[in-house]
């Protein structure tokens, strides 16, 4: 009798746990916003489905004509994160990507949508992969204070740009025409072009120096851009950031005014 009760209790507890995990996966939490996947699905159908596809696998009807290809949410691999390479992004990372868009791609800024709507979209995007139920996001990386940009830091950055082989993809002039550029592919085997640093002040995952520093730490998962967290010190990463900024010298790189969270 006692054993039977224990088994029943354990089964109920397991069900409650699974249900709560499932419910949690249907939600997102961005600041004081709680996103709802059901509402997000309606929004996804209106705004996103044509590129990312009804199954979230990046095979929408427009995907054929897009370069780079839309993200495949079923793989739970995201370029723009504040978490280490190989880990899931925070809800705020997905929210910021939706808000900011991904520069030099078909993904526009969806800032005109309500903040609640963007949170709802995050909740729905997470339903495409079971990874969001099975794993926790990574811990956000730490970005130290930025030292001043000096001629010396730029010079050091230029040397690192060579020794770290950044030039082999991005090119010596930063235009994305390095010798390896034509051979690059994303995690689904689609050709992908390195970023052209001369194209302006915006980058794939933001427009501030902190954004670029973070990219060097986290890498852009799903692309050939690796994490340099073990290959360079923090000061060296800042030097590279300062050097990359010189490719678009005619443009201001004042602090971004994105509607981003947690940055």
């Amino acid at each position: 009798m006692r054993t039977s009760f224990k088994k029943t209790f354990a089964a109920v507890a397991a069900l409650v746990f699974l249900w709560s995990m499932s419910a949690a996966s249907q939600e997102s939490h961005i600041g004081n916003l709680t996103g709802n996947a059901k509402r997000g699905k309606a929004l996804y159908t209106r705004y996103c489905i044509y590129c990312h596809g009804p199954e979230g696998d990046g095979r929408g009807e427009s995907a054929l004509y897009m370069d780079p290809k839309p993200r495949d949410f079923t793989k739970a691999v995201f370029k723009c994160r504040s978490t280490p390479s190989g880990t899931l992004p925070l809800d705020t990372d997905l929210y910021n990507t939706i808000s900011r868009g991904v520069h030099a791609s078909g993904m526009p800024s969806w800032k005109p949508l309500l903040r609640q709507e963007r949170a709802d979209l995050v909740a729905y995007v997470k339903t495409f992969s079971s990874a969001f139920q099975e794993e926790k996001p990574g811990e956000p990386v730490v970005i130290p204070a930025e030292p001043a940009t000096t001629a010396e830091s730029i010079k050091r950055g230029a040397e690192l740009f060579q020794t770290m082989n950044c030039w082999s993809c991005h090119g010596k002039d930063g235009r994305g025409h390095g010798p390896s550029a034509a051979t690059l592919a994303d995690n689904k085997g689609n050709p992908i072009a390195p970023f052209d640093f001369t194209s302006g002040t915006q980058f794939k995952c933001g427009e501030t120096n902190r954004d670029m520093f973070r990219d060097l730490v986290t890498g852009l998962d799903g692309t050939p851009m690796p994490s340099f967290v073990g290959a360079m010190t923090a000061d060296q990463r800042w030097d590279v950031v300062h050097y990359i900024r010189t490719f678009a010298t005619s443009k201001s790189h004042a602090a971004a005014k994105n509607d981003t969270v947690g940055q």
Partner: protein
Amino acid sequence: MGRGMNKIALQLLLVASLFAALEQAHGIPAFARKYGLPCSACHEAWPMLNNFGQTFKDNGYQLGNGRDAPIYQEPSYWPVMFRTQGFWHRENNNRQAVDSVPGSAGSGQVEASLTTSGFDVGGVDFITAGTLYNNISFFVQPFIGNNNITLSQAWARLDNIAGSRWLNVKLGKFELDQPISQERSLILNNTGALYYNYFFTPPGDNNFFQGVGLPQLGVELAGHSANDYTRYSVALVSNSNGSPNLPSNKAYDVYANFNQAFEVPHLGSQQIGVYGYFGESPTYYQTSGGNPIPGTGLGNKSFYRVGAYGHWYVDKFDFYTFFMHGSDNVFLGNSVASNHPENLPLGAVGPTWNGGFVEGHYNPTPRWIFLGRYELARMSRQANPSIRSDAGNLDTWTLGYRWYPIMSPRAGLAWTQEYSRITNPGAAPISGLDNIRNTYLMGFDFDF
């Protein structure tokens, strides 16, 4: 019994399959062809814009994702679209003056209820628009009617001047930044398609104002916040109701619009705005052989239209509320040349009036929109005391829906059904009773 049930089940399955197939299709209207977005991304239900579409428009038809300049398009890409309609409609006018003996002009006139019906087409709008270069946008819209071709719009715009989204300058013939776009009306029929307040002219007035409702010739300065919640526009336009070739009557009008939106939890976006149109119109012209020479207007007198509006969302419902106050100078209101004030009737004053409308939509999915509108105008002061106080008043309402069964990768198609009714008190030509017009329309509205 069993076979009957199976047959019904099969039919239900076929119908369900048809709807399922339709629901999986998503459309790309003209601009979306460039970016690969569905038309529902920019349109609540086309042609009505949502906030994302309004932002795209305000940003010079640019998404700002580094893919806006024409250089990123296939060389064969040509940003052209057309829109037209094919439909059946029925109209009834309850009191229209007719000859008592058809064909006999001398037989005297009586009032009769007239009904006409039949198939029809709505003319064709051709639109080519987009970006000439980064931050230089354009829009050209010829309209082919039954017997003529007109240039509805033609303008170029410098966008994001000095890198600021608050500075955009447009020059040419363009639709003013209206509280609710006349060009994007969801209603097609003759009775309900117009926003009457935009075109209202009091009885006896010769200032046939179309400034707010129709595209105007001029220059516009406009700006907006990143999410388009805050917007402004100021336009200086020729006083010609959009007619080219300098019939400007030596006068310029000014239009301004400002609106602000707020996000309200559990409801959605709420927008409020104010606008004003201030201008002058001629009361007489230089003449040749007694005929007025276009563009030589003299004796300009002032008029204005001001008001406020709102756009309120309650989840899948949204409502526009609109108010307008209008006033014309006494000479305009009485159609009297200002160099002959002695021709003004005794007790003549400048006419004033108020009007407004409420338009509601229910948009459960991007494929369906149900709509209703009630609009009214009320004279508050007639120009001539001898005119009955309610002359010129109007009440109109519309009910309808639009269904978008097919939104293919290159086109959009809407099936629409609508019923409209307008009442003009005391406007029957002989009896002076109320004049009422009813219109029913159903048909296709499509673009490619």
